[in-house]
């Protein structure tokens, strides 16, 4: 059982670390798009795509970087009481409250799934099975949602990316949960 937990933690942390390390350089992509936007605006015709593309990159940046930020421990906690506790007590509290955090992320994920299904032209009440159907080829894509701007990009890719990011976030939080379990069993992590 312990081996399994270690395996999960190792695998999830490694995947999220790699993804986070790639997302980290998104800052330069974002910067490049914005700089191109100001150059093209000043010297040529303003580009239509820059504003929305920058927004998409920003979303990818913080959603995909989220699990890595959890690993780094940059997400602030209110340490009025927490700061004074022993490692064991911290682990006990985290063990319970991280489940609530996972619940929040699951609700986010479900909202994301139904919103992505909508952007692929599905209006029914079973978005999860619709998306699964798309993946295995039993469902047809309907009318695709586009952004109501001059550029009119499709919306589904960014929403799909957000689903992936939120799913990775859930995996990472579950890894934190397992780490607390191991800590309570007396391991040093």
């Amino acid at each position, binding site marked *: 059982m312990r081996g399994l937990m270690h395996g999960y933690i190792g695998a999830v942390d490694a995947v999220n670390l790699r993804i*986070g390390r790639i*997302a*980290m*350089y998104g*800052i330069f992509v*974002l*910067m490049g798009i*914005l*700089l191109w*936007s*100001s150059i093209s*605006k*000043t010297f040529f015709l303003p580009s239509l795509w820059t*504003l929305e593309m*920058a*927004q*998409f990159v*920003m*979303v990818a*940046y*913080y*959603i995909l*970087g*989220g699990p*890595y*930020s*959890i690993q*780094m421990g*940059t*997400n*602030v*906690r*209110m*340490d*009025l*009481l*927490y*700061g004074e*506790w022993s490692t064991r007590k*911290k682990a006990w*509290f*985290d063990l*319970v*409250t*991280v489940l*609530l*955090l996972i*619940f*929040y*992320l699951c*609700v*986010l994920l*479900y*909202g*994301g799934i*139904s*919103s992505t299904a909508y952007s692929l032209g599905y209006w029914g009440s079973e978005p999860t099975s619709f998306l699964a159907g798309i993946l295995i080829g039993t469902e047809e894509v309907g009318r695709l949602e586009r952004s109501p701007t001059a550029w009119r990009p499709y919306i589904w890719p*960014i929403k799909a990316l*957000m689903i992936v990011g939120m799913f990775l976030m859930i995996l990472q939080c579950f890894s934190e949960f397992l780490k607390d379990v191991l800590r309570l069993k007396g391991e040093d992590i």
Partner: protein
Amino acid sequence: MSYEMIATLMFSSMMLMLLTGQRVFGAIGFVAVVAALVLWGDKGGYDLGFSAAMKLMKWYPLLTLPMFIFMGYVLSESKIADDLYKMFHVWMGGLRGGLAIGTIGLMVLISAMNGLSVAGMAIGSTIALPELLKRGYDKRMVTGVIQAGSSLGILVPPSVVLVLYAMIARQPVGQLWLAGVLPGLMMAGLFILYIVVRCRVNPDLGPVLSKEERDIPRAEKLRLLRAGLLPIIIFATMMIPFVNGWTSLVESSAIGALAAFVSAVVKRRMTREVFENSVRKTLGITCMFMWIILAALAFGAVFDGLGAVKAIENLFTERLNLSPWMILILMQLSFILMGTFLDDTAMLVIVAPLYVPLVGELGFDLIWYGVLYTITTQIAYMTPPFGYNLFLMRAMAPPEITLRDIYASITPFVMVMVLALVLVMVFPGIATWLPDYVYNKP
């Protein structure tokens, strides 16, 4: 259940969740989605959390956030500001308390190059602090100077706090930034005044530099003055296109980030380690902010849906019969009080959605309130037991500075800041004159 009851219940369960020490975004987000599910579960309550993410994506000025954070980290990690410190050192060292005054000047310049207080804090405590201690400056005064000075980072443009405020208050960021300029300079002036007076009364606090250290050739002195060009150039490349309307705020922030990055490269400070640290920390801090805002937006949406603001306004004005000014003062007091024990970032995004609409309902100018809000946040940043700056200071300061020193050092500066807050409240013109002048040119 009445709306006020639901609002109170949500607020108290959030506080309880925060006390458990779980990550702030988790605590806020959990309460928000549970409330949404209970209230409107069958009518779209489940996708309230995700629609906050879409709202967040479409909010354009938020793109400045990673840019300014990156700028701040490039400045602090690469230490390109150290000859800036030398400049003040040489030019101000001859005065009583001159190095402390120079440090305030340094902080103002750094504030003009980045939007958070972290960079000022890092540069102040690693470069200025050891020098000042070596020269026999009183450690409590010096610690206070750096903490107070670095907090100007969020008031002087560019300011990340004002960007967040603008999002919540739905006000233009440009005007808010301009509104922060004069109060920021006024506050710096008040700090300097305080230092001058203290050092006059008690010269031991800030001794004049020794004769040989002051004996620097004029040519060298003038050469050092060139260091002051850097912040001016960075600030100008960023602000001139923006104020003239050539680029948008977001594009300017990217130009600013590029300018900071290029100057670090040109000065040969962009080592592999500096690069790695600034890129990684930018991701960490940006994620922290974005996930908290994401959760807070969902929380705010539930509040909006409940009409809780209207209910609270009624409670104050009709049932308790308070005048708008009394409510405003009470709000600022409670804000400072909360700031002492609530995490500052959380406070920023939780309290604001509740307070800002209320201020609007009461008929106050939201640009002006933005400045009050920021000054109050500054105070909250510094007040024990839980100030962000206090922790940073403890982490960065040399070991001879104890936590007790840090706590003791801030008292006079917090009082100066409260004075500045009162001044801006009584004379709104300090904040509103500049944006009015620039945006309503005849």
